[in-house]
């Protein structure tokens, strides 16, 4: 294959072609987006709401760097996040039927880049209990440790993390009672 023939075959974008394949692609693509959104719908606020599984600060911390992220732009309220759902769905629907396809293709792409969740919290409770330093309660009182045993029965009676931690090996790695 000569360079010229390669270049010629490379450039289908600049020749008149049947629009059917790209239209079919657009329709299938946007239908898949719609299906994804419908499947997400029951748990939309659980994933993306103001009090979701994952907070926006944590998401930004775990995935640093510049991102195309609508949640950093819109106010962190369930109403706005619901509106974002309907914007995504309507854009995908318009893309499917071929109405305003240029702007809707961009909108659908941007909406697809939503992060996993969003929440704004001023609570500093992301600090985990340290291995050798008891922390006051209420706060995270233990973190990942191998646990051969179970939760101590007196955990509910304890009024401080210290009490809980001192009763079970698996809680803190601190000495046991």
């Amino acid at each position, binding site marked *: 294959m000569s360079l010229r023939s390669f270049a010629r075959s490379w*450039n289908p974008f600049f020749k008149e072609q049947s629009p059917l394949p790209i239209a079919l692609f657009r329709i299938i693509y946007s239908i898949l987006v719609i299906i994804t959104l419908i*499947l997400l719908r029951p748990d939309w606020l659980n994933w993306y709401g103001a009090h979701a599984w994952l907070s926006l600060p944590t998401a930004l911390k775990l*995935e640093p760097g510049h991102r195309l992220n609508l949640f950093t732009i819109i106010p962190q309220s369930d109403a706005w996040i619901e509106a974002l759902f309907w914007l995504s769905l309507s854009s995908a629907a318009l893309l499917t039927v071929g109405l305003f396809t240029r702007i809707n293709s961009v909108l659908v792409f941007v909406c697809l880049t939503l992060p996993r969740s969003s929440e704004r919290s001023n609570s500093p409770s992301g600090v985990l209990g340290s291995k050798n330093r008891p922390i006051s309660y*209420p706060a995270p009182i233990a*973190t990942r*440790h191998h*646990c051969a045993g179970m939760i101590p029965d007196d955990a509910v009676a304890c009024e401080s993390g210290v009490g809980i931690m001192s009763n079970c090996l698996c809680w803190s790695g601190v000495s046991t009672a």
Partner: protein
Amino acid sequence: MMFQPSSGERVSSFEPDRPRHRQQRHGHIRQGDPDSRIGHTSLRTAINVFVGFHLLAIACWCAPVDTLLIPLCRNLVRPYFQWSGLFQSWDMFAPVPKGANTYLEATLIYRDGAREMWTYPRMEGLSLKEKLFKERCRKFADMLQRDELDELLPDVARHMARLNSSPKRPVKTVILIQRLSFIVPRPDEGYVPEPWESHILLGYGVRAEDLR
């Protein structure tokens, strides 16, 4: 790049060499206007670069090999891929498939002293329809069990507390537990699940503001 259309070949509005009456009718190229020709050539070049770059970058990102150039290419395009959300991994089943059955539970301790066990959605316990809707839960559960993502756990504990609290009966403590059973290969090439083990991922004391 300019190409002469062969005889009988149809040409598009981008084509500088299309018949002049069509160019004038569509207003894309003014006759004898060198600036327009340069503009169209630049546009074509830009589109080619855009498409070519994405083909190459996505191929490098998804290629299941780690030769010298592929990781280099991935590192080069990583900032752009992260910004645009184009990153995608395809290593669900390879090279190292999961070697354990796992699921998550939470022990919820209420202010009144009651305890309840709350199980995070498990795919094996759901109907086909429920699996479709809860697939994201499986992915999220897999993430929660990775050591490097421990920072997710307090958010999850807070959310569980909110889901299970009422004003009269708030959750006081959330204890996230990972249940784990390793899948051990046997000499006869079969696999046998080990007994279930428990790992405490996090104990979280719920604050009043967490429930607002």
